[in-house]
């Protein structure tokens, strides 16, 4: 502060000019950043306002009721919230170990001539449109799940309630698997970047102290824990909002069933399915309230995940110092 006021005194006109540019730049970028907030605010308000009819009529029971009946105009979003959370969670459980495994292979083990083309292929997966995943899922993956995966699971693990029931192919399991394939490239490529950013000296130090390759890798992974979690959050964002691919394989039945073989439904899918033909005010209002709930769930899940990252990095820093 002191030095800058001194400068202003000595070279006033030129600095003033610069200051104008600086402050213009500052306000302009602040304005751009504020636009994002404004956009979110306007979206949230608009959704809240247009769903007021259903909010007034159903209140909190909208979140706890499982009844979704457009004919009787009874709307409850619980099965959709459940389906969105479970399918996304399933996707992360399946994709996280594989994604981190790919990243570790690429950064620690793969020979350089293999790393480049391999990374490229992984990133290519992220660019495939979701409708393509959906069609592939519907015509290739679902029949395979019905004829091989589900019979295998129910034969060997049928005592677990998760794997009960008739093998339809479509259902929560199929949705989780297709989502895991879709979030895999996000988790793998970001984790790879994060692992690449681990200082070589860290690994060398570990190896020099007599660590095995596995132990050195573990140190690298724990060093980049927060980054990997960040990658998972990005993947989760995609999984929560995914529409087309999920709609094609989840079976679209608004019911809460423990078994992963049973059909389910997600918030994004019901919007995609029913919005175009919704005619009555209450129906549209209820669908928009679903969008609002999805918006809030996405924010909440992200916030919880950020909190997780924050608490992890804090403890890992302490551990590092010890």
């Amino acid at each position, binding site marked *: 502060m002191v030095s800058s006021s001194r400068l202003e005194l000595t070279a006033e006109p030129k600095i003033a000019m610069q200051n104008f540019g600086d402050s213009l730049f500052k306000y302009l970028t602040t304005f751009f950043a504020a636009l994002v907030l404004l956009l979110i605010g306007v979206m949230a308000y608009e959704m809240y306002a247009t769903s007021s009819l259903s909010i007034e009529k159903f209140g909190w029971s909208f979140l706890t009721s499982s*009844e*979704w*009946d*457009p*004919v*009787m105009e009874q709307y409850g979003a619980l099965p959709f919230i459940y389906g969105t959370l479970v399918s996304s969670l399933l996707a992360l459980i399946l994709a996280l170990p594989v994604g981190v495994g790919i990243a570790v292979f690429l950064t620690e083990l793969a020979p350089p001539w293999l790393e480049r083309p391999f990374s490229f292929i992984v990133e290519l997966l992220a660019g495939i449109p979701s409708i393509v995943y959906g069609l592939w899922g*519907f*015509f290739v993956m*679902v*029949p395979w799940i*019905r004829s091989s995966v589900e019979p295998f699971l129910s034969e060997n693990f049928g005592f677990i309630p998760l794997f009960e029931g*008739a093998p*339809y*192919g*479509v259902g929560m399991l199929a949705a989780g698997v297709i989502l895991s394939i879709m979030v895999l490239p996000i988790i793998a490529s970001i984790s790879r970047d994060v692992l690449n950013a681990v200082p070589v000296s860290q690994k060398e130090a570990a190896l020099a102290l007599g660590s095995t390759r596995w132990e050195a890798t573990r140190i690298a992974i724990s060093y980049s824990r927060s980054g990997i979690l960040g990658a998972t959050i990005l993947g989760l964002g995609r999984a929560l909002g995914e529409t087309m691919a999920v*709609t*094609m394989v989840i*079976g*679209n*039945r608004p019911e809460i069933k423990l078994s992963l073989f049973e*059909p389910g*439904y997600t918030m994004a*899918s019901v919007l*995609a*399915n*029913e*919005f*175009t*033909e*919704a*005619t009555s005010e209450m129906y549209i209002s209820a669908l928009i309230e679903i969008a609002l709930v999805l918006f809030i769930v996405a924010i909440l899940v992200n916030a919880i995940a950020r909190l997780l990252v924050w608490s992890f990095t804090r403890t890992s820093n302490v551990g590092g110092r010890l």
Partner: protein
Amino acid sequence: MKKILSFILFVALTNIAAAQLQLNGAGATFPYVIYSKWFDEYQKKTGVQFNYQSIGSGGGIKQVIEGTVDFGATDGPMTDTQLAEAKTKQGTDVLHIPTVMGAVVATYNVPGIGADLKLTPDALAEIFLGKITKWNDAKIADANKGKNLPDKSIVVVHRSDGSGTTYIFVDYLSKVSAEWQSKVGVGTSVKWPVGLGGKGNEGVAGQVKQIEGSIGYVELAYAVKNNLSYASIRNKAGNFIAPSLESVTAAAMNEADKMPEDLRVSITDAAGKNSYPIGGFTWLLIYKDQKNEEKAKALVNFLKWAFKEGEAFAPSLYYAPLPKEVIKLNEKKIASMRYNGKPIQ
């Protein structure tokens, strides 16, 4: 540089000047193929351009109420409330003009029973209510003497997206089953008692093809083009009728004399010996009192052309054409359109 710019400006301006009359419409996806054909042929003939967005019947009705289009299109008629709302907002009645018909067929995948499964209305309703769960149930077997129906579970597949196809199908089930009417009701999306949801005709057909023992419903046109096997349904007169363009037109013909004044009518469960019972109209939604003389004239001429010549394109595109009786009713409706209180010539 300047030359290029002025050239661009010149092209842009002349294009605006040459722009022809354009009518904007929005609505149902089901009749999109034949409407595109009509608009294309009519533009070749007269130069009048049409811009039709197939955003779904619900969207079409909404835009008609808001007055953002010159005409709308829907597979399910507007409700009285919606008509009243349109009247308050646009200051005019909205006419329903039926254009072509479609049918919904029950497609199934049961190995070894061949193509001509027969279903009674009762059996169909109870399958979709989840009360008949096996293919060898007596209610199915009675109508299919000589067929070896397997002891296999029935898997019901329905549309997951809101759709006019669903509307026609559940409208039929409501008419033939009191239980369906009270438990489920009629709409473009309903609360299905059982079954898996597939997106679009292709989603339903795909699941039926994949899952042995399944039954679903799709548009007739889709089933014919994709060689699906579909059931004959027993109609009101007691005959098992296979779905076809002719049997759908027959249903409309038999209902024409009972058509209400505003032409908002369901022809499911139609009377008549040869009527296929699960069919329906798709409508254009037209403002009775037009606001723009030029557009009004173009619209009236187009409608007259559509029912004189356009209907001939229907069968080749797998739509059932209107019977003469209904076209006559349409012509009366078109004649009732007004601009400034005067008939449109």
